[in-house]
C-alpha cells in the first residue's frame, strides 16, 4: 500500500526534478562575468568553426564549469546516500564523517611533493578520504561490530577538525602553495576547463553504475545486519564496497573542486522524503537531485553578488548547515 503511494508520487516528482535540473543547468549556463553572452550562444556551439566570441565563452568557460557542477553533485549525493545506507545513520555524509576533509588533506600532501601531478593527486585525495573514513569508523566501534550512531558523527567531526587543522598548518609553511590550497578549500569551481571534466565524468558515471548495482544490497542493509545475512548477503561486504566507493567518489570531487560540504547530507534526505526508501529508485533520483542542487548553487554563486563570485561550496554550506541543525533536532533514532 505504502509502496503504491510512493509510485504514485514518484512519476510527477521525477518529472518535476528533471524540469528543475534542466532550468537550473540553463540558468547556470546563461549567467557569468559577461552579461552579453546568453543561452543563444549554445546554439551551434558544437561543430561550428570558427566560433564567435560568445560561442567560445560558452564552450570553453561555461560549459565545463556547469558539467563539473553536475558531476560533483552526482558524486557527493551518491557518496552520502551510500554512507547513510551502510551506517544506517541519517546524519552520515562525506563532510560530517570527515571524509571530505581527509581528501583535502591528501591533496595538500600531494601538493608538497612536486613530482606528483595529474592523476596522482586524485590518488592521494582518495587515499586521504579512505583513511579518514576508516578512522571515523574505528572510533565509532564499527570494527568491533557495534556501530554507535552518535559516536560516528562526533568522531567524524573530530577527525574532520584534525584534518582541517593540518590543512591550515600547510598554509603557513609555503606562500605559493597556500595560494593553491586556499583556492579550493572553500569549494570553488570558477576556473574549470575541459581537462578537469574528462576524468571526473568517467569516475562519476562508473560510480553511478556501481551504485545502481549496489542498490539491492543497500536495501537489504536497511533491514538490519541479521536480516541481510539471512537473505544471503554479507553486510560486511556491502559495507566495505560502499565505503570504498563513497571514498573514491568523494576523493574525485574534492580533487577537482575542493571540499563542498552538506550536498551529500541534504540530497539523499530530500529524495527519501519524496521517492521513498527503495534504493533502486533512490539512486537515480539522488544522482539527479545532487546534480540539480549543484547547478542551482553554481547559478546562485555567479548571480548573487555580481562583482565577487561566491564559491559554490559556500552556497552549499549556507543551505546545508541549517538543514543539519534541523536534522540533529528532529532525528529520533540516534540514541
Amino acid at each position, binding site marked *: 500500500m505504502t509502496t503504491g503511494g510512493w509510485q504514485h508520487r514518484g512519476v510527477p516528482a521525477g518529472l518535476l526534478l528533471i524540469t528543475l535540473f534542466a532550468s537550473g543547468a540553463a540558468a547556470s549556463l546563461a549567467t557569468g562575468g559577461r552579461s552579453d553572452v546568453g543561452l543563444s550562444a549554445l546554439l551551434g556551439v558544437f561543430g561550428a568553426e570558427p566560433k564567435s566570441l560568445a560561442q567560445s565563452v560558452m564552450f570553453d568557460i561555461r560549459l565545463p564549469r556547469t558539467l563539473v557542477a553536475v558531476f560533483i553533485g552526482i558524486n557527493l549525493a551518491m557518496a552520502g546516500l551510500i554512507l547513510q545506507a551502510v551506517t544506517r545513520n541519517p546524519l552520515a555524509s562525506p563532510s560530517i564523517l570527515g571524509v571530505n576533509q581527509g581528501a583535502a588533506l591528501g591533496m595538500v600532501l600531494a601538493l608538497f611533493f612536486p613530482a606528483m601531478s595529474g592523476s596522482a593527486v586524485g590518488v592521494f585525495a582518495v587515499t586521504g578520504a579512505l583513511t579518514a573514513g576508516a578512522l571515523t569508523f574505528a572510533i565509532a566501534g564499527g570494527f568491533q561490530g557495534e556501530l554507535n550512531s552518535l559516536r560516528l558523527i*562526533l568522531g567524524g567531526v573530530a577527525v574532520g*577538525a584534525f584534518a582541517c587543522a593540518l590543512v591550515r598548518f600547510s598554509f603557513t609553511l609555503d606562500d605559493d602553495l597556500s595560494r593553491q590550497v586556499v583556492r579550493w578549500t572553500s569549494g570553488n569551481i570558477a576556473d574549470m576547463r575541459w581537462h578537469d571534466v574528462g576524468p571526473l565524468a568517467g569516475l562519476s558515471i562508473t560510480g553511478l553504475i556501481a551504485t545502481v548495482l549496489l542498490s539491492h544490497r543497500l536495501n537489504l542493509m536497511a533491514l538490519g545486519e541479521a536480516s541481510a545475512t539471512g537473505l544471503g548477503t554479507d553486510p560486511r561486504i556491502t559495507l566495505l564496497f560502499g565505503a570504498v566507493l563513497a571514498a573514491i567518489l568523494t576523493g574525485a570531487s574534492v580533487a577537482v573542486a575542493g571540499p563542498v560540504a552538506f550536498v551529500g547530507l541534504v540530497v539523499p534526505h530530500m529524495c527519501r522524503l519524496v521517492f521513498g526508501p527503495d534504493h533502486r529508485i533512490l539512486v537515480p533520483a539522488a544522482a539527479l537531485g545532487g546534480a540539480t542542487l549543484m547547478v542551482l548553487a553554481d547559478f546562485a554563486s555567479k548571480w548573487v553578488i555580481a562583482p565577487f563570485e561566491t564559491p559554490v561550496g559556500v552556497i552549499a554550506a549556507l543551505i546545508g548547515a541549517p538543514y543539519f541543525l534541523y536534522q540533529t533536532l528532529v532525528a529520533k533514532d540516534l540514541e
Partner: protein
Amino acid sequence: MTMVSGISRTVVVFTLLTLSLFGAAIWSLSAGAVPVSWQIIANTLFDLDGPRQDYIILRSRLPRTLLALLSGGCLAISGTIVQALLRNPLASPKIIGINSGAALAVCLMVIALPDLPITYLPVAAVLGGCLAASLVWLGSEVGKVSPTRLVLIGIAVGFLFDAGVDYILVTSPSFKFSTPLVWLTGSLWARGWAHLGLVWHVLLLLAVTSVILSYRLDLIRLGDAHATGLGMNVPRERFVLLALAVLLAAISVSVVGVLGFVGLMAPHIARSLVGGSHPVLQPCAILTGMFLVVLADATGRALAPPVEISAGILTAMFGAPFFIFILITTGKAEQS
C-alpha cells in the same frame, strides 16, 4: 592518612604546574624570529645592567605572553564550568558553539563597520557568543537530550555560524579579510598592550568571581534535587554560571581569536591531576590552560622561524585526537 597524602599530592601538583608554567613563559619570551637568551630577558624585565632587548621583549613578546596566559586561564575556567553544568565530559566553549558565534559577530563588525574602534570587539564577540549559546540551550530544551546529543546540537550550531563566516569572508574584498583570517585560526600574532589593556580588567574580575563561585559547581554536580535540598536556587545559579562561562570564552576569543579545544583539554588534564572537587580543580585547570596556550604560542613561533604557526592550529592538532580519546572512553563508561 589519605587526607594528608591527598593534600600533599595537590601541593606537589600545583608546585610542578607553576614551575612548568614559569618555564613555558620564559621560553615564550625567548623563542621567535630573533632568539633572546634568558640573561637578556632578565636584564630587560628587571632593569638590570648589561645587554637588553627593550623593543622585542617589552613591546612584542611580553604583552603577547601575558595575553596567552590570560586567555588560556579564562578558556579553561569556561570549559570547567560548561563541563560541570552540562555534566558532560565532551563539552567545551567551542563545542557548544560559543567560539563560532563570537567569530561571526566579530567578522560582521570588522567587515561591515570597519570604522569602529577595536574597543567594540569584545562587545560584538559577547553578543555572538550569547546568541550561539542560547540557540544550543533552546535546542537542547526542545526534547530531553543526552549529553552526546547536546554536543551534536552545539556542533550543528557551530556549522551554521561557520557557514556565515565563510560567506562574509569570500564576498568581501580581499584587503579586508586578511585580518579576520589570521584571527579565525586563533593567533596571538601582532597582539600587543592595546589588546591586553582592552580586556584584562574584565577578564580578571570574571575569573576571580568564577573561582569564588566554583564550590557551587560541586553542589550542582550532585543533581538538581540534592542541590535544591541544600538550599540552592538551581536555575538561577545555573544561569549565572553559564553566563560567566559564555562571557569568559567570548571575551577571550575576541582578542586572541578562535583557540579551539583549550577549554576541553585543560579541565580534563586538571581532573586527572587533582580530582573532581571544583575549588581545587578550577585553579588547577586555570594553570593548565595557561600552560597550554603559552606553550602552543611559543611552539608556533619556534618551529619554523621566521614563519609563525598559529596557536589555534596547534591546539586543534592536539585537541581533536584528545576529543576522540574522551569520546571513546566516555562511550565505554556509558556501556559498562
